[in-house]
């Protein structure tokens, strides 16, 4: 679509705005659930004119080797993403807070593997 892609914040905005837009199908992000009980995982993206075709295309592009039992698609512009330039304030503060990891407990042997 016409707005810069919020799912790909690293793409320079000038590039998406100054180039004349080709009339392309919108970009969709594809999530596949491999087995029942597992969660959907992001597997890639593709282009499609609408959500029904996006699911069909996802079926053909990403499940042809028996990878999935369920497909989610979401138009990429609907994904809000954190900005890579914000990674300092967002993620670095947690690096030195080891007490947030539950590693200070003695686990009784009877519990077994956790």
């Amino acid at each position, binding site marked *: 679509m016409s707005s810069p892609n919020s799912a790909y914040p690293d793409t320079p905005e000038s590039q998406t705005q100054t180039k004349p837009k080709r009339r392309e*199908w919108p970009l969709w992000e594809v999530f596949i659930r491999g087995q029942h009980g597992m969660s959907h995982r992001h597997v890639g993206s*593709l282009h*499609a004119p609408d959500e*029904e*075709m996006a699911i*069909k*295309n996802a*079926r053909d*592009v990403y499940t*042809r080797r028996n990878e999935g039992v369920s497909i989610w698609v979401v138009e990429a512009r609907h994904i809000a993403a954190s900005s890579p330039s914000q990674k300092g304030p967002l993620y670095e503060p947690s690096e030195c807070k080891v007490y947030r990891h539950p590693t200070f407990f003695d686990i009784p042997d009877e519990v077994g593997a956790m």
Partner: protein
Amino acid sequence: MAQEHQAQLFEFLCRMGDNTLVLGHRVSEWCGHAPVLEEDIALANTALDLIGQTQMWLGLAAEVEGKGRSADDLAMLRDVWDFRNVLLVEQPNGDFGQTMLRQFLFDAWHLAMLTALARSSNARIAAIAAKSVKEVHYHVERSGDTVIGLGDGTSESHQRMQKALDLLWPYVGEMFVADAVDDAMASAGIAPDLAALRMEFDALVKPALAEATLTIPEGGFAHKGGKSGFQHSEHLGHLLTQMQWLQRAYPGASW
């Protein structure tokens, strides 16, 4: 009598297998050439489904024939006059819209045929049909949506789809004209009555073409001669030249 039945069954199985073989090859011609990557992969998947079905149909045909030929022999070493596919599937791809319309017309017939064959009195045929019909459910959904999207799309896509329908509609009739082989299969409970199949075809295809804002050409003229092998169009020979050249040039080559 038993010998005659065997010959007719062989003929029927060749028709099923030759349809999927020839269309599978035609669709595979798009590999690397489709308008977008997603369609390219989807078409390749369809082609592979059809070739997979071919292996089952021609494999069974070869068994029924009992002359020691294999599915590969039937596919790669017969010449034009021995092929029993309908004329529709050997028609050239044309543009993408024409390919998808040809696909939709075939898929609609194929779906009705396989649904009926899944209840065949012949257990082997019923098993092949039951496996194939799942693939074809998806084929017809995809081709139908694309035909509607392009027919009811821009003025250019609409005009191209109408042109494709005008070209291909006269090839629909052949899929439903019953001959002695069809009658024998129907009376043995092996395959369905083709007139009943036509009603199912129309119930699926006509509303879809209306939604695609396309007009079905008037008149009931039908090109014939493919499934009887009487007269294929010139296109089949060219297709076979490409498909069979390796086995012709290097007989028995395998890898």
